[in-house]
């Protein structure tokens, strides 16, 4: 018999399908990826979503505007305070009201502390994913201090539900400013410690540099926002571009990097924490006095003490709690610069106390859409880097 061996050039390899998730430590929760791999190289990556879909947009249609605030905590649960702010700003736009200066400043303070807290969590988890386990203990040490502050302010460590339509649940507790200042004063040195362990670290550099590159054009085309967009060289920050809640009063820089890779995203977020600290300090320094809620009985329920003593106020409270705010017919969209990017709420109102439809434009969802493009042709181990550098929170992706 004459057996002929195939020439080496005739040999073909087959790609393999690999399932990653939905329970995988590297996917930040419950992301599931269907990967097609050729050896170690990723040919294509298809995200499969919906493992955390809780139907929040549908739930919103059956809740008054106030009742939906707790659900916004559970979107990007890493930074609940900034979700609270984003949502009430949209409702306030619908109602055509504006919060008082003091409320606006406190909201800015909340957003920036939430940004630091969210970025710390990202830093810790990304470092763990890439094998630098030490960092998470440093990051959580700082996060615990922030949680303590949030507890002071809102009564809970997470899932704060602190804002209200037309203002805030309550004013800053006594001595809060000085406690925030104490935290912010020592924060730079703590951040420097983490920075020193990572930024010039050879392994960190090699695993992040040039990984998950996205060009400026692609970043815009995919609708990336937040640090991921700014790391691709686009200086777009809603706090500067469309200031809300008095952000125009604050001085800060928008960090931009050109490379568009994971390392650039890392650098941008590190700098954002420093800038967030700057804004928070300014907010404390210039904190205006005055009421924290708009003095309109149709918007703000009267204080509890008065509700119990007077018929008129009891009725007002009842109206707001049971029927909700009397919103006019119309459609509004309002978005803020959340830690992950543009977080927007689109509300369609048919009049009455509940939205007819509420759509959440979540930054993680849009940012994640670029992931497939970023990992194609890269090694399997880079998938983890790319996911963590995009920092998706699945609660917000699936909603």
């Amino acid at each position: 018999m004459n057996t002929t061996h195939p020439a080496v050039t005739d040999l073909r390899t087959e790609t393999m399908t690999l399932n990653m998730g939905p329970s995988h430590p590297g996917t930040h929760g419950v992301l599931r990826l269907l990967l097609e791999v050729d050896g170690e190289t990723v040919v294509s990556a298809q995200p499969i979503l919906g493992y955390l879909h809780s139907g929040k947009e549908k739930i919103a249609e059956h809740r008054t505007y106030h009742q939906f605030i707790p659900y916004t905590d559970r979107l990007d649960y890493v930074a609940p305070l900034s979700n609270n702010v984003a949502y009430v700003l949209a409702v306030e736009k619908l109602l055509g009201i504006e919060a008082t200066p003091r409320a606006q400043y406190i909201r800015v303070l909340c957003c920036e502390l939430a940004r630091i807290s969210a970025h710390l969590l990202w830093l810790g988890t990304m470092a763990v994913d890439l094998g630098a386990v030490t960092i998470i203990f440093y990051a959580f040490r700082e996060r615990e201090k922030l949680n303590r502050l949030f507890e002071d302010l809102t009564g809970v460590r997470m899932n704060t539900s602190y804002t209200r339509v037309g203002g805030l649940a309550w004013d800053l507790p006594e001595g809060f400013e000085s406690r925030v200042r104490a935290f912010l004063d020592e924060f730079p040195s703590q951040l420097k410690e983490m920075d020193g362990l990572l930024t010039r670290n050879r392994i960190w550099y090699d695993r992040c540099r040039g990984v998950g590159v996205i060009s400026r054009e692609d970043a815009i085309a995919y609708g990336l926002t937040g640090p991921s967009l700014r790391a691709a060289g686009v200086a777009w920050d809603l706090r500067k571009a469309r200031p809300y809640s008095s952000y125009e009063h604050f001085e800060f820089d928008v960090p931009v990097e050109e490379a568009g890779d994971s390392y650039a995203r890392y650098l941008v977020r590190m700098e954002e924490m420093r800038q967030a600290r700057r804004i928070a300090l300014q907010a404390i320094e210039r904190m205006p006095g005055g009421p924290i809620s708009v003095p309109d009985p149709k918007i703000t329920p009267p204080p509890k003490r008065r509700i119990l003593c007077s018929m008129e106020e009891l009725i007002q409270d009842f109206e707001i709690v049971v029927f909700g705010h009397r919103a006019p017919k119309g459609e509004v969209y309002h978005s803020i610069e959340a830690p992950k990017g543009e977080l927007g709420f689109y509300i369609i109102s048919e009049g009455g106390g509940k939205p007819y439809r509420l759509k959440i434009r979540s930054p993680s969802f849009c940012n994640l859409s670029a992931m497939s493009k970023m990992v194609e042709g890269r090694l399997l181990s880079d998938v983890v880097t790319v996911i963590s550098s995009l920092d998706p929170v699945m609660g917000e992706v699936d909603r």
Partner: protein
Amino acid sequence: MFDGNLEDMIMTTRLGEVVKWARKNSLWPMPFGTSCCAIELMSVLTTKYDISRFGAEVARFSPRQADLLMVAGWITRKMAPALRKIYDQMPEPKWVIAMGACASCGGPHNSYAVLQGADEVVPVDMYVPGCPPRPEAVIDAVIKLQERISRASGDETRQGAALAPRQEGA
């Protein structure tokens, strides 16, 4: 050879007691964190709360190496089969902690997509209330579970949870 009093060096006990003691003090948790509670679970595992003080810090992301399943977060209908599969892959004996309102009863998510409690698919030993529970509460649950393990009769240590999954409509 040793010289000395044999009785000072040897402790007699029953095998079952030693096994229980070992199991109780070396729980290996598999954090099945889906949502917000997972973030608090991370606080439990890291600085300040540091659950390693109670002998349960070796978090394993492979169910085959774990004996304590910590369900933290809401479980959607799409996720339920994965949760059950992970539970089935864990070697006996095994225990389950449902952390937070969602894992216990669906929490605020009373919707078409969410299971009203992880106990619809896996047997739960310990429910921790809270949304999210404080880290202290989670540590308390682990300690209570340890007590339960050390009290268990021979059979129960083998089987972990004594409960069967809740039947539909039961």
